[in-house]
């Protein structure tokens, strides 16, 4: 089986949420001498890109996506030990979480998934995250980006404070926001560097801000 076909099957296994198939093609990729980074990007991540497209079109729903995630992580576990040092070194770091008072974390988890598929290192702070925690972790981890998620108009109002404080401590850290009630206009008003309406946009925005 050729390289192109193995990568295609890896993507397909991800879309289908087939863990066994994903593991088996990840192993084949290694056996065939395919670069692990390429297998992740053009296999797993490509699969997740298709998944997120299908979700937007209403062809896949969250239960299916969660199975795709399982398949992707299973394949990545096989591939990761084979990653070359230079591709690991380049990984950009994102601190991600749902703001204080808000426990809606399904969307944030999909964003995390897509960012990881795209090669970012995600430090997941979970949900109902106090402002101070975002700030502390952003500095401590020397993050490239901080991603804030909010699903409620009542909870999103803390975003400007968090963003302002992070910028004060380290102006180099970029901030992105997302979640139902946000918009590009609000993101700007809140002082964020980027906004993403869904998980694939989150990846695009993150890449455009820090490369990677």
């Amino acid at each position, binding site marked *: 089986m050729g390289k192109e076909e193995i990568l295609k099957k890896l993507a397909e296994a991800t879309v289908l949420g087939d863990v066994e198939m994903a593991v088996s093609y990840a192993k084949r990729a290694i056996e065939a001498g395919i670069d692990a980074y390429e297998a992740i990007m053009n296999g797993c991540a490509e699969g997740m890109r298709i998944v997120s497209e299908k979700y937007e079109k209403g062809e896949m729903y969250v239960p299916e996506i969660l199975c795709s995630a399982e398949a992707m992580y299973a394949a990545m576990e096989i591939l990761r030990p084979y990653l070359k040092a230079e591709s690991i070194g380049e990984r950009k770091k994102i601190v991600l979480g749902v703001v204080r008072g808000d426990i809606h974390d*399904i969307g944030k988890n999909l964003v995390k998934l897509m960012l990881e598929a795209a090669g970012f290192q995600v430090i997941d702070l979970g949900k109902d995250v106090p402002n101070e925690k975002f700030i502390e972790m952003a500095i401590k981890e020397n993050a490239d980006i901080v991603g804030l998620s909010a699903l409620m*108009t009542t909870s999103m109002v803390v975003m400007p404070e968090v963003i302002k404080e992070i910028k004060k401590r380290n102006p180099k850290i970029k901030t992105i926001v997302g979640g139902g009630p946000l918009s590009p206009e609000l993101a700007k008003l809140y002082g964020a560097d980027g906004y993403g309406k869904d998980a694939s946009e989150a990846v695009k925005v993150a890449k455009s801000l820090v490369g990677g």
Partner: protein
Amino acid sequence: MIERMTSMERMIAVLTGQKPDRIPVNPFILGFAAKICEIPIGDLYANAKKSFRAQLLCAEMYGYDSTPMYAYASFGAWEFGGEIGFPYEPGQSAPYIIKHPVETPEDVDKLEVPDPKKAGSIPIAMELAKLCYENKMPVVFQVGEVLTTAANIAEPARLLSWMIRKPDVVHKLNKKVAEFFIEVAKYFTSTFGADKCMAFTGGPIESNKLISAKQFEKFVYPYMKQIHSKVLELGVNIILEHPCSDQNANLPYYVKLREELNWKGKYVWAFGPETPLEKQIECFGKYDVIMGNVDPPSFQFKSFEEVLLLCKDNIERGIKNPSGYILGVGCELPPLSPPINVYALIKAAREYGSFK
């Protein structure tokens, strides 16, 4: 306009197919009432007396027509043995789950259907219900939705992936949840009499942002039908159903439910803003009441004039429902809304929704 009816008379008029003096208003106010009365939102969910008082005073002050009730979206986790937190910290606006009682399929096997008299928040709901009863108001109790409750018990992402990986486990859990809600219904109706009660149900996990219509059919519909049949059989005549968020793809199943129940009882449909009123009238207009669905975030962010226009538009479209219409908001009114914007609901009902 001069109001010729009390709130109670107005609601009863709509529910019995008569013309009220003006359309009633039920703004789905919970946390906002706490804000208005300057008590922590936590008290609205943790303290029945304070909750009743705040909800009542807020309704009186504005002149809207709904009466106090007890319900929250994270329901189920505490009742089945987990742990929740009440929203006492700044930024928090509703109860949140600290520990889910189910983590593994084995936990589902071991899970016992709790005694409603002691389970989680039910004693608080019961205390609030007694205050309603003593004050000659309807008693409202919560009976769903099943999948949202199951998700609160087992953690949403885990439950959603089990729907594909371990569908039997989900059915097993749903069965226990349905059994519990039926016990809750028996508890409230036997305490107050079914004619004094109204059932409330609804949930966000059923939304088509998360699951497909096919998944709704498989994992929600049978249990929903079981619970609703039982509630009606117990003699409860009014069911307030809130399909939260975008449930347009599930609409055919709600219609099917009503058909299969022979349109028994009176339903009040409280869909999210994503479902146009015209569509709702087409589906339920012959028999059921429709509650308006003004966009919730607009109350927090738009000007009074803009909100008033949104309410007017909702009234003009909803009033066409042959079986009655109540002006309402598409989900909980955001607690941080400027107080004047809530007045827009009442003003609109008086100016654009009065009957001669």
